[in-house]
């Protein structure tokens, strides 16, 4: 009788070339469009969010091109407004929020906990279709004139003052929001009910903890945004003044409700990346993670405290001084669990046997860029400094360090780490390392100048700027073009790997997680035999606990 047990022991018997897997079990369009297999749905999501990433990327490219010269010769002010709105809306709501949970989470979560699927497979497929409807509607909006409100839809930009497609745009976002809610619901129930025998909560991989925390935020924050947009729609349709001071409405209420979703959404956009890094660091330093429980609970506490800091977006919008003080303090507090993670990651590397393969390069890039983004976040949480740099490029640089330097780096790390598991193929390590390097350099060059620009006072969201800012803007645009190349490269070599002959084998990184104990690509049922878990997820040769090494 064969059983799978942890820690991992290579099973030479697995012959995967002829074995049935989730890709070759059925062919044809219908077998994909009607699939309830979480692995196939993960790939469907991969394709959809990649399309949206490139749409948002095109908008970003045009923005940077326009800012090459101080007079904004490429596009008019109106078009510029539509471009940065399109970039923000597509990247936030249709790429960053869904990307890691729906692609890597969908694919890996059941594998990492030894389950045969997510708890609600049909709901999972439905959530993809809902996402598609939202995304198509959004694309339709963009190609039929766009919106000019910015991704925040502040009133009165979005109510009285805008004559663009605000209603279809917020409808698309609400629709995509439902897809998030269903994904979150699926993950929470799956983690609670479908763990393999012996897989206790404190043996869960940290990526699972981070997905669980993310799901809680998705479930509790998204409905608030949906209702806010319902109120906004009513204001536009019936011409009443819910947020209009002329009719005794309060525009600040809009901002409160908006950021009650959108600040926690920042953590939807970073927690999964943190989870990926927590998987990769132990593997590529051959060392157990340092402070497992601290990292696990810091994910939960980020999810909880993250709900209490939204007011830091309204320091200059008429919020009371007392409220501002409290929100400033809470914003400092929410940095603590993030810092705990960074310290634990560093301690994991300490005396590890570190190797620099592609996933590790991206993960290390994540830590560096996220730390810069986090520290500048502390500057912004300080009331006095916030007023100085409010609505400048300093803010733009800060949140791009978190969302692009953090989350997109984390996503790339995870994609490269699990690509062999998802496809059974290994990509070209040389090209992949090169692209990691290019993305890192391009990113720094794009956004470091923006910190300086913002500190010097260049406001965001203008299509022209004083001539003295041109040098830094040219540097930023140059960096963006390098970054663009960096993002196009993986597209090429990952697809090329599918047609290549380099098979990855079940466990190319000699990692310990459950997902590596099944063939690559995994069989339709995920595991040939139900795994029994007897130890934690990171039983590598080196210990982080000192004395426990020999036990």
């Amino acid at each position, binding site marked *: 009788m064969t059983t799978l047990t942890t820690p991992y022991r290579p099973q030479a018997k697995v012959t995967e070339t002829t074995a049935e897997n989730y890709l070759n079990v059925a062919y044809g369009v219908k077998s994909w469009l009607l699939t309830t297999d979480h692995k196939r749905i993960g790939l469907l999501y991969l394709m959809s969010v990649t399309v949206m990433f490139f749409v948002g990327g095109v908008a970003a490219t045009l923005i940077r091109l326009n800012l090459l010269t101080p007079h904004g010769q490429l596009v008019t002010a109106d078009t510029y407004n539509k471009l940065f709105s399109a970039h923000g809306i597509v990247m936030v709501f249709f790429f960053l929020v869904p990307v890691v949970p729906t692609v890597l989470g969908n694919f890996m979560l059941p594998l990492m906990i030894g389950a*045969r699927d997510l*708890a609600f497979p049909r709901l999972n497929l439905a959530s993809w279709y809902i996402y598609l409807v939202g995304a198509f509607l959004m694309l339709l909006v963009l190609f039929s004139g766009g919106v000019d409100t910015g991704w925040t839809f502040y009133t009165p930009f979005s109510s009285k003052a805008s004559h663009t497609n605000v209603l279809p745009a917020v409808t698309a976002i609400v629709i995509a929001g439902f897809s998030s809610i269903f994904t979150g619901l699926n993950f929470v*129930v799956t983690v609670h009910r479908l763990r393999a025998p012996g897989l206790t909560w404190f043996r869960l991989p940290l990526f699972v903890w981070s997905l669980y925390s993310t799901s809680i935020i998705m479930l509790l924050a998204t409905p608030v945004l949906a209702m806010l947009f319902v*109120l906004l729609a009513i204001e536009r349709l*019936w011409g009443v003044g*819910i947020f209009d001071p002329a009719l005794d*409405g309060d525009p600040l209420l809009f901002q409160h409700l908006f950021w009650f979703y959108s600040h926690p959404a920042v953590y939807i956009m970073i927690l999964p990346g943190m989870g990926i890094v927590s998987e990769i660091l132990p593997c590529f330093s051959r060392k157990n993670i340092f402070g497992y429980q601290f990292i696990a609970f810091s994910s939960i506490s980020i999810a909880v405290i993250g709900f209490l800091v939204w007011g830091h977006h309204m320091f200059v919008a008429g919020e009371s001084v007392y409220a501002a003080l409290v929100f400033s303090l809470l914003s400092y507090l929410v940095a603590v669990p993030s810092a705990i993670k960074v310290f634990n990651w560093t301690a994991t590397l300490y005396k590890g046997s570190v190797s620099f393969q592609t996933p590790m390069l991206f993960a290390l890039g994540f830590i560096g860029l996220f730390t810069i983004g986090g520290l500048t976040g502390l500057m912004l949480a300080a009331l006095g400094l916030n007023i100085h740099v409010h609505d400048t490029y300093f803010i733009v640089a800060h949140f791009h360090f978190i969302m692009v330097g953090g989350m997109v780096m984390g996503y790339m790390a995870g994609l490269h780490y699990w690509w062999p598991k998802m496809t059974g193929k290994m990509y070209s390590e040389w090209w992949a390392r090169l692209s990691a390097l290019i993305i890192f350099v391009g990113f720094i060059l794009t956004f470091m100048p923006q910190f300086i620009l913002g500190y010097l006072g260049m406001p965001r969201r203008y299509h022209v700027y004083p001539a003295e800012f041109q040098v830094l803007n040219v540097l930023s645009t140059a960096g963006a073009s390098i970054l663009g190349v960096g993002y196009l490269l993986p597209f090429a070599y990952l697809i090329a790997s599918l047609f290549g002959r380099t098979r990855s084998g079940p466990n190319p990184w000699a990692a310990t997680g459950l997902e590596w104990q099944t063939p690559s690509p995994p069989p339709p049922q995920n595991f040939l035999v139900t795994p029994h878990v007897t130890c934690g997820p990171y039983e590598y040769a080196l210990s982080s606990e000192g004395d426990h090494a020999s036990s």
Partner: protein
Amino acid sequence: MPVRDRGLWHHFDSLDHQADSNLLGMWVFLATELLVFGALFTGYSAYRWRYPAGFEAGSRHLNLLIGGVNTVVLLTSSLTMALAVRAASQGRQALLVRLLLATLFLGSAFLGLKAVEYRQDYLERLVPGLAFDRGAWQELHVNPNHVQLFLIFYYVMTGIHALHLTIGIGVLGILTLKASRGHFTPQYSAPVEMWGLYWHFVDIIWLFLLPLLYLVSTRTSFY
């Protein structure tokens, strides 16, 4: 291969395991729903705290008689729903169908009465943006803007509640059809229990809406 129970998905170990997971899924969904209404309660509270006079005046013009009768109707439907869940778990098919039908009927009665009430509100010019008489409120020395805000939240909150009820009625219709075909057994009754939870949740929301919307001030008449 052991024989799998009917209605059991491959990734669950047993029907119990599956039922348990489905119920948890509904509880989690209801947590989301709580925030749907939570956002509206927040907006309502902000304006009611700021404009108490306008909210009281607006509230006095709502039809408490229909609101009250509807409360009784909805609470009774919760009773029949709870009994339906019990009947399903005991495998009493005929009783289950009858109780589901009763719940369906009471839910629809609520919506019918609500529609009558909306129509009256319209006739009394209580609909901001469509039929609203600013001058009449000014004569009463009430700021019409504040009344408008109250009425907007009244329509959004009751409207979203009615939408939930409509979805509930749709699902209950499907469950009734399935029940009449003997689909549910004592081992497989989780869908009835799940949507029972949903039904009760929608009722509980109404129990908050009633005082927030109809009972803002002491009243001398019911409508």
